[in-house]
């Protein structure tokens, strides 16, 4: 379980996140949504232990600030937003970097996990390609395979591991958006946890157990997608008068931009 209590983050003197409290449970996909600049990514970075922050952040009961980088690295892995790489690494070499910490850094496990991780993101056969020559969406999936291999076992020594994904499907086509979201779901079902910063509300409603809606560095709404996604929230948080509908069979909420009222 990852918890934040009264989390406040200031970057170069400007407060970006104001007193955020949230809980991300193992076995659940927690999605953070909100308009641009609402502090989603900053919140996630603070949860990852990457930014100095005020307030308490814990992972499985340990204070994140008190853990060494290599201790954190076996409990959570982080998918950053698009990253350029200056050197000609092959896909296999990138994915393998995730396997330099943790219990799987033995030669025979490395090759097996690398192949499985690439298969999981639908990139089997890409191991020998150069990262720099791939498309943006393929690069994003390579990075996800690396992140996945870092905490390949969703539960390690009785403690759940957490995937922290910053806009994991932003560069992907619709088929691979579903592939990746299903992958995240499977990780939760195997006992791990996922925190994802998302922009696509419909995809979020389909896959998230818990939805945190942020505005101006504060949590505006939090709960199950069906509770959080309301006409009222769309206007209050996104400044957009839109109508929320629900899928007849499942009752999951969805929103179409066509319903935006001028």
């Amino acid at each position: 379980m990852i918890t934040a209590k009264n989390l406040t983050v200031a970057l170069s003197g400007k407060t970006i996140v104001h007193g955020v409290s949230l809980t991300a449970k193992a076995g659940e996909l927690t999605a953070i949504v909100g308009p641009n600049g609402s502090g989603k990514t900053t919140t996630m970075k603070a949860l990852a232990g990457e930014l100095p922050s005020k307030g308490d952040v814990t992972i499985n009961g340990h204070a994140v600030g008190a853990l060494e980088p290599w201790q954190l690295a076996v409990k959570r892995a982080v998918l950053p937003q698009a990253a350029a790489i200056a050197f000609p690494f092959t896909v296999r070499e990138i994915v393998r970097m995730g396997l330099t910490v943790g219990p799987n850094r033995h030669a025979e496990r490395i090759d097996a996990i690398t192949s499985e991780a690439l298969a999981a993101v639908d990139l089997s056969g890409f191991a020998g390609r150069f990262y720099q020559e791939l498309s943006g969406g393929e690069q994003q999936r390579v990075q996800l395979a690396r992140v996945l291999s870092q905490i390949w076992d969703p539960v390690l020594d009785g403690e759940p591991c957490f995937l922290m994904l910053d806009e994991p499907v932003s560069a992907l086509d619709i088929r691979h958006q579903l592939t990746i979201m299903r992958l995240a779901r499977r990780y939760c079902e195997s006992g791990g946890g996922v925190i994802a910063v998302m922009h696509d509300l419909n995809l979020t409603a389909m896959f998230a157990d818990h939805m945190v809606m942020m505005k101006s560095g504060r949590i505006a709404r939090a709960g199950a997608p069906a509770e959080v996604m309301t006409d009222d929230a769309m206007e209050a948080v996104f400044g957009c008068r839109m109508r929320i509908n629900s899928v007849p069979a499942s009752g999951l909420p969805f929103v179409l931009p066509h319903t935006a009222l001028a």
Partner: protein
Amino acid sequence: MSLNDAVRGDSARGFSLMRAVQSSAAGDRTAIARLTLAVLVLVSILSLALSIATGASDASAINVIGALFSGAEETALSLRDRIIVVDIRMPRALLGFLIGAALAMSGAVMQGLFRNPLADPGLVGISSGSALGAVLMIVLGASLPAGLMLTLGAFALPLAAFIGGLLTTLLLYRIATRGGQTSVATMLLAGIAIAALAGAVTGILIYIADDKQLRDITFWSLGSLSGMTWAKLFAAGPIILLALLVVPFLSRGLNAITLGEAAAFHMGVKVQRLKYIAVVAVAGAVGASVAVSGGIGFVGIVVPHLLRIVIGPDHRYLLPASALFGGVLMLGADMLARTIVAPAELPIGIITALAGAPFFLWVLLRDRARNGW
């Protein structure tokens, strides 16, 4: 047949060595990296031996070494040969190799640290800072307390160059880094400014230097391996060796930093500590090299770049391979420098610049074509 084809597993065009490498999984260059390392170790030993065995004099290294081990009586001739081989060629070959290794590996470390294949101790002003330290010592060393100078002895120049390099690197790092993020553009531009500043101060020192100091500075700044002695080897060698031994422990961290400093932290790397160790090691290695040989440029760019094409950017192999290849190239350039205009010799810095500068331009042009601008 390009190496890229081999890496991708294009067996139709592979030659036998590449086929052997392909038997491992696609995209895995471990086998070829190990093979390259083994070849480089052999070539290093050969070039050290060749460098000691050849020169303007016909002194026979085999006879001398034979005599050393057999304890044979020293005739007049063997004494002359012995001085040439043991006191002139050996320290020159060993120190030349170490300097090449130091410069090449420092280049690889800087490039990894700043995530830019064009970062080089020479380009970002570290060499200029070291040079300033060294010139300061040449010109003003005489006015330091005699006791201090006596204690420092041969270490005075390397120490001054090391401090100059370290201060430059720290200043550079300070300027280019904000909130834990290092801006490569700022670093390169700050490097130009720092190099200009160090050059100006060096100029002032040259202005006030007397004739003998001026001669010392001029020959030193051209970059040369001539005049290497065991004393210089013992002064600069340990610093370089220490850096060469420490840096390979940074490999995993440098690999991770390729993905960004945040990503490296996520993967469990203590980024700040890694940066400190890397910066001090680079300043030490470059400072010690500059102190004994002057500015020898472009080794730090050319060597890691060529190796990345063959074995890939994995620092676990790139760092030791750069050190070995840098040493070999330096000895090769030195043999050229000694023979082209024999019995005189060219400053080696001229040769590395003649070969390295066009190479640097080629890399720039190739990247320009690749990036489409």
